[in-house]
């Protein structure tokens, strides 16, 4: 018995071949690729499946300024074969792209006059598009709390320094292992929450980093009185197809590639607490 299904003209499982516009090293193990996008729409917090030719594709968040519609900006940490293969790409090379996929960060609505962004490590990457937008909204009071392993791992430091001079933006940096030149905070990002001026009724909080860090940060924010519905986290799972077909990224009933990676904390809090779910 046959089915009546219309297939779209472009199979979302088939990648596009796109040209790399530039390669930039950010830190010793993090680099940024700018890739021509062909003007495809995307939302802050969404991800693409990116692969070097002959290598497996991997999910990578989009980290660029949403104002740049001609390119995808992907900031990638070298942790395995696939990301290392991407690190060899240079301007003019071809790269395989599928996407964008997933549900991104919520739009900061008018009722929220305060935006709190808490990120750790490369967790800052998917939050950059939102921060670009926030930097252009003088009425939105934005606080970024950003934790890194050491001062040399701090990403986008020039951009962050520029933003910290904006009247509406506060940037609070912290590292686990400072060097002698470090003049910011030491310790985990959670340490900076009790002393950040947070109005629980007007704040929307976006968190991205290692899952443990997100769990503890979210709890710290709840202690400050923020509603779990105003806290969002971005989950990392093994996304492969991007369409809820392959099953790899499941978190109980959620296909993280489809209903995530960004979730309101009240929807995901319980699932984050269960080991190995």
């Amino acid at each position: 018995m046959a089915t009546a299904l219309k297939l779209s003209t472009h199979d979302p499982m088939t990648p596009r071949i796109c040209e790399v516009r530039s390669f930039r090293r950010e830190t010793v193990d993090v680099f940024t690729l700018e890739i021509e996008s062909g003007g495809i729409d995307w939302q802050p917090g969404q991800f693409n499946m990116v692969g070097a030719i002959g290598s497996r594709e991997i999910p990578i968040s989009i980290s660029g300024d949403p104002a740049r519609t001609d390119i995808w900006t992907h900031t990638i940490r070298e942790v395995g074969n696939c990301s290392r293969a991407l690190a060899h790409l240079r301007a003019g090379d071809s790269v395989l792209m599928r996407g964008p996929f997933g549900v991104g960060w919520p739009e900061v609505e008018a009722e929220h006059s305060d935006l709190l962004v808490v990120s750790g490590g490369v967790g800052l990457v998917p939050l950059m598009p939102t921060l670009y937008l926030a930097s252009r909204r003088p009425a939105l009071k934005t606080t970024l709390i950003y934790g890194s392993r050491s001062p040399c791992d701090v990403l986008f430091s020039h951009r962050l320094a520029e933003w910290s001079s904006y009247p509406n933006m506060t940037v609070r940096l912290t590292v686990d292992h400072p060097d002698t030149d470090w003049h910011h905070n030491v310790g985990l990002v959670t340490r900076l929450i009790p002393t950040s001026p947070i109005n629980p009724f007007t704040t929307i909080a976006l968190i991205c980093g290692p899952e443990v860090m997100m769990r503890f940060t979210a709890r710290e924010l709840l202690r400050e009185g923020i509603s779990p519905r105003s806290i969002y986290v971005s989950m990392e799972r093994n996304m492969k197809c991007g369409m809820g077909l392959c099953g790899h990224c499941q978190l109980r009933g959620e296909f993280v590639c489809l209903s995530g990676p960004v979730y309101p904390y009240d929807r995901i809090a319980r699932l984050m607490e269960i080991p190995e779910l």
Partner: protein
Amino acid sequence: MSKLDFHTQDPPILEAEAFGTLWRVLNDFGYQVVGPALRDGAIRLVPLESADDLPRGIRDLQTPGNYRTSSRDDGYLFGYSHVADGAKRWLLRPRTTLWRISRRDGQPTIEESRDPVPKVALLGLRACDLKAIEILDRVMLRESRADTDYAECREQTLLIAVNCEWPSSLCFCESMGAGPQATGGFDLCLTELPPGGDRFLVEVGSPKGHEILSRLNTRPATTNELHESKKVIARAKGSLRKRLETRGLTQALYSGVEDDHWERVAGRCFACGNCTFSCPTCFCCDYQDLGEIHQRVWDTCFHSEFSGLHGGAVRGSRASKYRHWITHKLASWQEQFQTLGCVGCGRCIAWCPAGIDLTEEARALVGVAQGDTK
């Protein structure tokens, strides 16, 4: 005569000789017949040259961790419970090429050079197999994000069911609302009448099925034959021994997520993945790049790489893998696809080298949940 009149007519009888012509007729329509045959010690779904390839007089015996065939002393062609490997491998192919990269003037280009999709008539599907296909359709054919290879295979496949008269001791299709009687989702559905092999009652389920039936020699069924067909199905129903109570199951699996019970299952589970490969609805796939060929291959949630992040697997322990599998089948599948992921075929029980029985595990978890509320 309007197109759908076939639904209202009494189903006719196809006798042995006419049944034999089914192959020629299906070939005329361009279909290769794929049906049950004894292969590798199991009754499997394979290409069949003629009715002679069918497993005449062969039955299957299934117990936890055990599958055997033996002869039966009658001429039934479909005298077994169901094929060991379901229809899944013909629709969601175990390994298929999605695209490849070729070079033109040194520039890489993508070619959507899929493996050819065979036009097949799947013969001998049971009600549970049809239900499994219905579930797979929900998974694979969602609006705007369908799996193209599955969609094409599905489009090219004719479904000819044969009502189940011989459930195994592991079958619990009735609990899952999947059988034993096929009530839809087929192009044609046969009921093999006693003493087996010489008369089939034929129901039509689609215009295509009607078209094919009209090319076969049939005769009207007698009142007695109609009665017989009901009797054999009722007997099959009555012979089902295994049950799975689905009420309260989702809640029990969710609330028991941190129970010690999972460790006890893990003590027996090998995390081999047989349950997922034999399951007619397990759909998880991986994507592999072999040189410049990109393929979709079956995967199993029992492998650690399945949930692997760069730091390690999300689900590393056997307890968490088994918990994920059964919770997906019997609870979270409902959230995702508004149906459970189990059809009650019992294949995962027979093909589990440790004989782990998901109905018993589910019952144990429900017991845990009820203990909590006492």
